[in-house]
């Protein structure tokens, strides 16, 4: 859920602002609201999630009402409205992936990370969740990890082990 009690003010770096300006230039004059989704992706990549103060800052930048940002951020599944683990393992849970073992992979990840879907591990490193079809059914089962949305395909338990230990050592 959206947390509206926070009063902290978020400031954007010069670099972030110039990237936002670049995006706004793609649309006709007065249509800067079109930049909203790209900018929310930038914000999430920078801060790890999309907080209410960050959304207010986006609204100010685009000269639109804050509600116009909230309603969009809550509609799309990619935006995290609460802090998550540093790495969020998003496993495809839709039909074609399930035909070749996605449910088993999710149970294995749950066991291995010792957290339920949507929760964060004690060290703050990992979360996981099931997501709907990622359009990679030929390489199933698959998972993705933001903010680059790197893909891990043809998953089995060994690959999950490798992936998690690689991410742990990357720290």
């Amino acid at each position, binding site marked *: 859920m959206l947390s509206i009690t926070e009063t902290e003010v978020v400031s954007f770096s010069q670099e972030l602002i110039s990237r936002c300006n670049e995006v706004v230039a793609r649309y006709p004059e007065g249509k800067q609201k079109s*930049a909203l989704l790209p900018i929310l*992706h930038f914000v999430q990549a920078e801060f790890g999630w999309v907080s209410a103060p960050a959304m207010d800052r986006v609204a100010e930048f685009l000269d639109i009402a804050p509600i116009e940002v909230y309603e969009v951020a809550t509609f799309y599944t990619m935006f995290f409205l609460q802090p998550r683990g540093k790495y969020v393992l998003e496993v495809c849970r839709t039909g074609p992936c399930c035909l070749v073992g996605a449910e088993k992979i999710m149970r294995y990840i749950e066991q291995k990370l010792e957290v339920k879907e949507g929760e964060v591990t004690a060290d703050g490193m990992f979360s996981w969740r099931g997501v*709907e079809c990622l359009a990679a059914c030929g390489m*199933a089962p698959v998972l993705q990890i*933001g903010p680059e949305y790197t893909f891990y395909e043809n998953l089995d338990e060994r690959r999950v082990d490798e992936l998690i230990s690689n991410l742990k050592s990357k720290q």
Partner: protein
Amino acid sequence: MSRKLLLEHINVPGINTFDVYRQNGGYRSVEKALKTLSPDDIVEEVKKSGLRGRGGAGFPTGMKWSFLAKPEGVPRYLVCNADESEPGTFKDRYLMTYIPHLLIEGMIVSSFALGVNTCYIYVRGEMMPQICILEKAIVEAKNAGFLGKNILGTGYDLEMYVQPGGGAYICGEETGLLESLEGKRGTPRIKPPFPAVSGLYNCPTVVNNVETIAAVVPIINDGADEYMKIGIGRSTGTKLISAGGNLNKPGVYEIELGVPVEEFIYSDEYCGGIANGKRLKAVVAGGSSVPILPANLILKTVNGESRLMSYESLADGGFVSGTMLGSGGFIAFDEDQCIVRNTWNFARFYHHESCGQCSPCREGTGWMEKVLHRLEYGHGKLSDMDLLVDVSKKIEGNTICPLGDAAAWPVASAIRHFRDEFEWHVNDPKSAMERNYGLAHYADPLEIEVKG
């Protein structure tokens, strides 16, 4: 061997770069179009080719283009639909990953044909790597003079931008996509007005699928006559099929429309048969939204004809015994798959993805998911099957966009063709929790009805 028009050069090392793509004949269609053809010539050629939209609906592309309104002084837009989220479909990801310049080339020719000076490629947000690939390719094309101002010295200007989505299947629906591109929630618009009259920023707009746009390239290079030689009847040209599920060789295949389904599944040129030596139980031939068919009906029509991978042959028998080519998301189910569980899974998908605008879809998808969940987990009732059909009928046709239909059809068709498997879940829940119903009679030869 199927002729390849889109993926001919896919295995050439470096084909994702401008230079290699160009050395292999890339961007010829832009030269030909801008220097020797008029916009109307191109629209006519595409019309003549019989190309039908590859995003799912199969609407004739040339006809869609000819509907584009052209009021004086109002900009027009071309938007490429790269939202690819229909379960079972992954061809657009493949094309954008490995041969991004084909899409860009098609976008330039199509934009020129439509009199468009700014075009967007709307890519689902999860495909960040593909977004980077396309952005890089656009820069390369621009540096080589194929984009920007005064392209190839012809006076034609075109800018192309990539727009990320945010994770929502509904943004694949073309007006949901346009809302999203305007920075709003992806709720589909009431039609009319159609995008051709009032689309992006209320300007005339054409929305086409990635593969549709890519197919314009060979049509302009070789001419509509050559394109029409491939395929069968009103299914002209080639089609990318995303093959997944329990197949020996899942992947993206470019087929000549008209290949027999049986050949597609079992021949080594394509999927190489069912994985692990198992038998085929069912197929969803065109993405999760189209009716599921048992093995016997996907291989043959009720008239005993061999079923072909074409718009018409897959639809033969209507919804009673046929299905649809849809987006070409071909999902094969082996004998150990549970149709009830899969139907519940798909129903959960549509419930999750319903935008919530129309009550039949918002409430109906959730209701169907709930009922299917209890059937799958051993708490179903025999009356549930009729209930599901009833709910699906009340969604179908009663919503602003076809997501409602897309949610209704998989449920209705699963019950139509696999009713005894559902009944078994109710009558013997203990067994149904422990094992699957198996192949049963779903691959038995059809009893051919003699007409008359």
